[in-house]
């Protein structure tokens, strides 16, 4: 017999009302504006866009505000919203070589053509809480320095390519797989893996990347280059017969250079891992590139011995919306399931007790 139990509606309504109240907090404090969230918590907004897999700073700022700063909740909101949008098409692949650079560093070449540009980085700060952050002190604008000629920032991998020291990109225009449209099967192509990693949880990928450094699927990596900046989005409009620029987005790209593999017709050369993420997030882009490289184990005849090399493990668990859904559903009513478990357990205990009594009787009889 199945009995539906009702009665939560009033409590749910009041709970949501209380949530709205707590979210707003002290009414004598001005409410957060979207400009404040998008402008001053921009890296939180970037993370929500990246893992929500929808580039829209205003919407991500709304989601951060609505979720009270719970970023995984905000990512969930963005994911839900994006499913309501009709897909108008796909952009041409972004040209990261033509990025309008805001930061670009290489750990492999000091004198990389185009130079080392630190940009707005936390690196080299002392990680001491700044008392000024408690107030609203005037902040000087960034310094300016005239450009020396036409700035060109070749990818570090292209520089190594000149000598044949590194595996090259194999250009193609194959239509990529799309995990939002088709269920993921294994083995998955590198296109699908990168799509999954690009929207994967930063913390999960960070830990997996870290695990490869500590020896679980060791790849001995160097940051060939990290670059952050704006890239133009171009889309072909069939109505017009040419591609138009629809605007620019900020992305972070990481080229991880890993230890050489070798022989064959090409001789030993460096291998690579790649990271590309919406917004400014070099931690995520670096972690992504480490995991991308680890997941290429089969390509380089490496034994798959570590979690980061196991694509089914990585791809099935890197999505924080899926993960939070399955973990958090445990708190929802499981009264009937649990009742069934209880019944089963009571039966087992009755049987156990009966058996124990019978054995005791037998022993006593024997003595």
């Amino acid at each position: 017999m199945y009995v539906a139990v009702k009665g939560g509606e009033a409590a749910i309504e009041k709970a949501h009302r209380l949530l709205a109240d707590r979210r707003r907090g002290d009414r004598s404090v001005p409410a957060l504006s979207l400009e404040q969230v998008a402008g001053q918590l921009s890296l939180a907004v970037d993370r929500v866009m990246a893992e929500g897999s929808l580039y829209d700073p205003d919407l991500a700022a709304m989601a951060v505000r609505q979720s009270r700063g719970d970023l995984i909740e905000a990512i969930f909101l963005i994911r839900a919203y994006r499913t309501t949008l009709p897909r108008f098409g796909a952009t041409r692949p972004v040209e990261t070589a033509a990025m309008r650079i805001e930061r670009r560093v290489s750990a492999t070449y000091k004198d990389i053509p185009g130079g080392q540009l630190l940009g707005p980085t936390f690196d080299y700060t002392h990680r001491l809480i700044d008392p000024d952050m408690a107030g609203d002190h005037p902040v000087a604008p960034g310094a300016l320095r005239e450009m020396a000629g036409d700035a060109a920032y070749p990818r570090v991998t292209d520089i190594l390519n000149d000598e044949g020291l590194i595996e090259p990109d194999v250009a193609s225009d194959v239509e990529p797989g799309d995990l939002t449209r088709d269920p993921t099967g294994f083995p998955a192509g590198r296109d699908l893996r990168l799509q999954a990693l690009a929207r994967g949880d930063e913390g999960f990928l960070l830990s997996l990347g870290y695990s490869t450094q500590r020896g679980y699927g060791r790849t001995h990596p160097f940051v060939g280059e990290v670059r952050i900046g704006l890239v133009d989005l171009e889309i072909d409009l069939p109505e017009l017969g040419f591609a138009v620029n629809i605007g620019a987005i900020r992305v972070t790209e990481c080229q991880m250079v890993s230890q050489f593999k070798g022989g064959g017709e090409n001789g030993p050369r460096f291998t690579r891992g790649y990271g590309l993420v919406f917004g400014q997030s070099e931690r995520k882009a670096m972690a992504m590139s480490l995991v991308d490289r680890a997941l290429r184990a089969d390509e380089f005849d490496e034994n798959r011995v570590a979690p980061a090399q196991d694509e089914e493990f990585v791809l099935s668990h890197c999505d924080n919306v899926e993960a939070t859904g399955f973990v958090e559903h445990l708190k929802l009513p499981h009264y009937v399931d649990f009742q069934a478990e209880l019944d089963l357990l009571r039966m087992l205990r009755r049987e156990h007790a009966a058996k124990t009594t019978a054995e005791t009787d037998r022993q006593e009889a024997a003595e």
Partner: protein
Amino acid sequence: MSRADKKPGRKRSLDAMASMPAQLLSERYGTIAAAAPRAIPVRGPEIGAVMVRGRIGGGGAPFNLGEASVTRATVKLDSGEVGHAILLGRDLEKARMVAHLDALGQRTEWQPVIEADVVAPALLLETAARQRRAEETEATRVDFFTLVRGEDR
């Protein structure tokens, strides 16, 4: 500017208008629309998404990076010219204005007006904004130097 100047006119205008801040576009559009033939909506403006693609390794095969919200609109003039717009973001009004200007831009009497009042200022603004950002980044360039050590003397 030099690269933009070589683009065919219509693409150059659409690209420039996409980059223009909505507020400024709206001001310029208001003046033009007051005197210009009206736009008949054909499609939208409507909000949707495009899949943003990257390339594996930066230069290899394409992969799907994630989506971006966009707004598109198509309008028509009484005289038959059709204007299109597709822009990053969710600004319905901006898409409608750009589509209208795109349609008007195909009429010889309106093309120079749109060029002078909208496209040229948009390009100037964008160039200045890019220049400023580039100079801010340039200021953070590392100038390595080597210290001459005593034993080299």
